[in-house]
């Protein structure tokens, strides 16, 4: 690195086959409505947290499904579970449960339980 004054950049590409999606599988199993999301962004629009900071439940949904867990880990905790998203969701996705499950899953994941 020092030798050249630069280092090899890390890619932004999602490597779907490389990523592990146990998190998503866990949630799919426990909360099937997770599949129903059509990424309309209604949840993010009404979100109490998003009013104060960069936070998008819609994006987290996608990232979980793609297995980009770290980004999820760092953001999920911002949720206040107030439930507005559940009320506005046009597909009846049980958003709050997804957040709670994802939190549990991440914990289990760290403890090698899933």
């Amino acid at each position: 690195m020092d030798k050249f004054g630069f280092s090899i950049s890390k890619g932004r590409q999602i490597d779907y086959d490389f990523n592990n999606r146990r998190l998503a599988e866990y949630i799919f199993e426990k909360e099937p409505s997770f599949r129903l999301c059509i990424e309309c962004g209604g949840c993010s629009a009404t979100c109490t947290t998003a009013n104060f900071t960069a936070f998008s439940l819609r994006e987290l949904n996608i990232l979980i499904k793609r297995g980009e867990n770290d980004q999820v880990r760092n953001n999920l905790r911002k949720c206040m579970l107030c439930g507005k998203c559940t009320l506005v969701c046009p597909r009846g996705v049980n958003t709050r449960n997804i957040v709670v499950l994802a939190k549990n899953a991440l914990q289990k994941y760290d403890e090698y339980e899933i």
Partner: protein
Amino acid sequence: MRKHVIVIGGGVAGLEVAGQLSKVGIDVSLIEKETKTGGHLNNWHRLFPDRRKSSEVKEYLDGMTMRSEIKLLTDTTIEAFRRTRNHFSVTTNRGNELTADAIIVATGFDLFKSARKEEYGYGIYNNVITSADLEKMFTNDKIVLTNGNVPETIGIVHCVGSRDEKAGNLYCSKLCCVTAVKQAIELREYLPESKVFCFYMDMRMGGAFYEELYREAQEKWGVSFIRGKVSEASETIENKLLIKVEDTLAGRPLKMKLNMLVLMAGMEMSEGGKKLAEIGGLKTGENRFFTSSDNHFGSNVSNVKGVFYAGTCTSPMNITETISHARAAVVEVIGYLKNGEN
């Protein structure tokens, strides 16, 4: 005296028109370039959104056309036609001369030639197939890779040759989205172990029961929908297809390996239609489909008096719309034959 109408094209629209005309006692010559009628119906296994067998619709249409008033000319194409005062004389490739009081053009559509989207490697990579190929597989009740294995991961690419300036088609073919969803469900049903991904630009679920089908695909069959246009496909050493796409909803490029890639080929003006447009001086538009005299109330009426359009030769339509459009054409023709006015 009895009136005589020539119907060009023995697909859904053509058959419906012929059937309806014959019902009201008008003689019909039905000209079909293929050996048998039915058009694209013959290549399709099941139809969206209810997934009924396409043969059932075919049966209905055949039933309509089993009538004495209808003269069926297969393996026939039109070489030339002239309009002399108020009737047409038509020359076919087999040299027979027909005269008619009116002509109904039902030349339908061709599927977009997927090889034109070189980056997807249709015809170059194994296991890159089109929606039509897949239907054939379903008909033959055998869905396997070229090496005989069963596909585990299958990608479905929407909008191949539609909404694509590079492909020269700015329009939306309207049916590919729902076809994709239908085929995704069928694949999951046929191969319960498989994972199916749909790569879409927009989900255009406009028709009746389309959205419900989409929901079912997600809820019941666990089909994954990824929003983004697949930019390129390539073969890996283990003979998988590596595709690149932007997951536009994650805002990140994404790559994944698939066993099979199904291209949702769009609809284009048929070659037959183009030829007819030339020899008959029929107007075609930007999208190369026939241009109707009026988009709202004259969609069956051409720029040539006595020539009418039926079905997908004017724009992409599903079967329901095609049949309605065909019946509308019949009304136009009858009106015209009665008082010689379009």
